[in-house]
């Protein structure tokens, strides 16, 4: 074996496909009994799939768009027509309907908030945030502290956590100011990240984002092994021994393509010179809820399905109905602290609360015919969604070694990409980067070597 890839998410599978295409012998070891990681499809009606994980993309996601073309996948637009619903007041029932997506809050206050965020991100070195001019100062404080200092207007203070929850599934207390600024810049700026039309939510992948990984894995065939959690990686001068629950594999090099805290859960011999995460690295917190109705009934009332709510569980909702119109799907996002609270409830109660809130938001809704809550908070092999959140001190400590190989162990995953960090695009770019790195580092050595030992059989 030449290269072992740990993790069959987008990053690991992109890397493996690139390596296989260059004639490198590669095996992918995946802990779960499925590929895809943070992309996952749910079939809500025969042949109709929704995204329980990643869903959206925009035109700047060029590596993703190229991969889709290779895999013969198409986009479907997220076009929203109709009015939005907002429940932002103190009284629970103060729902308001407004044309477009703009919330019934002071536009000047929100403008001041976006001005402040713009100023924050402008000075940042996005390729190396730890080298930014104010890095040390920005890395010691949390986004919550920043908001207390910079946002005076109550409307801005109300909106900021909702905005951060929607953008990065973060609670303001969990991320450093540096990480928030980095994330916003990395994804193309506040405006691009926030926008549906012309932004990062312009399209979905027709039939579901999970098909990316399924098709990549199909191309790799028997090289992908499921149900193989990697526990340890030992290395010597000649290569690596990757130890799973059931056996071990010998290879020239390993690619670890898992989120940072899971990379740290692997036992390395010799040990890592520095960890991949710290006690302050928080998991992003998201539960994605899908309410399935016989039809998108809200459209009949002139509503788009979009809502923003100060109270949970559903902090925002969006119409994710499949294009074939077989059913109406309302997707609800539960993020930040609310995700922890919600994830702790029994399923029956999750369902009751979500259904009741949707009914208040969208009058005339029938009882749903399907309910799915995908809890990414407690997924053993994700630990954080949409992505890991770098807390105070993390960027200065972890940033400089983000992609530095540990001898024959190389790193990938969306959290190693300073471009489109946390997104599918970042995961794919990291996979491409690591494949090129492997080929440059080991060259002919890996294309010709066949000596390998496999204890599985």
């Amino acid at each position, binding site marked *: 074996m030449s290269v072992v890839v740990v993790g069959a998410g987008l990053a690991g599978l992109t890397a493996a496909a690139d390596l296989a295409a260059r004639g490198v012998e590669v095996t992918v070891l995946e802990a779960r009994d499925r590929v895809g990681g943070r992309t996952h499809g749910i079939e809500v009606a025969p042949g109709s799939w929704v995204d329980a994980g990643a869903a959206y993309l925009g035109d700047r996601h060029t590596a993703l768009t190229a991969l889709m073309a290779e895999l013969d996948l198409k986009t479907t637009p997220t076009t929203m027509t109709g009015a939005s619903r907002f429940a932002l007041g103190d009284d629970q029932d103060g729902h308001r309907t407004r044309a*477009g*997506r*703009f919330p019934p809050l*002071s*536009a*000047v206050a*929100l*403008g*001041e908030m*976006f*001005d402040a965020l*713009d100023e924050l991100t402008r000075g940042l070195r996005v390729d190396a945030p730890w080298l930014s001019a104010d890095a040390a100062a920005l890395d010691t404080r949390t986004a919550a502290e920043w908001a207390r200092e910079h946002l005076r207007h109550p409307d801005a203070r109300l909106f900021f956590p909702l905005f951060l929850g929607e953008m990065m599934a973060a609670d303001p207390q969990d991320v450093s100011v540096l990480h928030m600024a980095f994330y916003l810049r990395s994804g193309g700026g*506040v*405006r691009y990240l*926030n*926008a549906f*039309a*012309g932004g990062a939510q312009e399209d979905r992948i027709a039939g579901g984002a999970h098909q990316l990984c399924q098709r990549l894995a199909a191309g790799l065939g028997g090289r992908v092994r499921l149900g193989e959690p990697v526990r340890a990686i030992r290395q010597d001068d000649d290569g690596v021994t990757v130890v799973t629950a059931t056996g071990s594999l010998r290879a020239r090099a390993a690619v670890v393509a898992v989120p940072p805290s899971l990379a740290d859960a692997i036992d390395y011999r010799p040990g890592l010179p520095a960890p991949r995460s710290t006690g302050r690295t928080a998991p992003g917190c998201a539960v994605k809820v899908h309410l399935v109705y016989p039809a998108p009934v809200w459209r009949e009332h002139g509503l788009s399905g979009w809502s923003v709510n100060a109270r949970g569980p559903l902090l925002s909702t969006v119409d994710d109905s499949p294009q074939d119109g077989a059913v109406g799907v309302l997707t609800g996002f539960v993020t930040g602290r609310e995700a922890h609270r919600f994830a702790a409830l029994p399923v029956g109660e999750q369902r009751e609360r979500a259904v009741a809130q949707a009914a208040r938001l969208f009058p005339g809704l029938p009882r749903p015919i399907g309910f799915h809550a995908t809890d990414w908070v407690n997924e053993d092999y994700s630990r954080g969604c949409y992505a890991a959140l770098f807390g105070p001190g993390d960027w200065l400590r972890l940033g400089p070694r983000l992609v530095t190989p540990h001898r024959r162990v190389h790193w990938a995953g969306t959290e190693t990409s300073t471009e489109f960090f946390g997104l599918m695009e970042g995961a794919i770019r990291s996979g491409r980067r690591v494949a090129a790195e492997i080929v440059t580092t080991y060259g002919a050595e890996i294309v010709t070597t066949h000596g390998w030992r496999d204890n599985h059989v």
Partner: protein
Amino acid sequence: MNVDAVSDIFRRVLENAEVSADSDFFVMGGDSLLATRVLSAIARACGVELDFDDFADAPTPGALAKKIASMA
């Protein structure tokens, strides 16, 4: 605030020099998020706080300057 001053704000926020008195902000690529930044700039410059619907009603520098004048 006169038309020229509002046009300048449009130019800065849209990063587009081709703004005239009757350029429609939303046709020129502006969206609601950028609109808030025009409104915060106007509030800073002259103290008039418009809301989003005011802007949607008067999305050109000419119309917006009139609205500001009527409220100042």
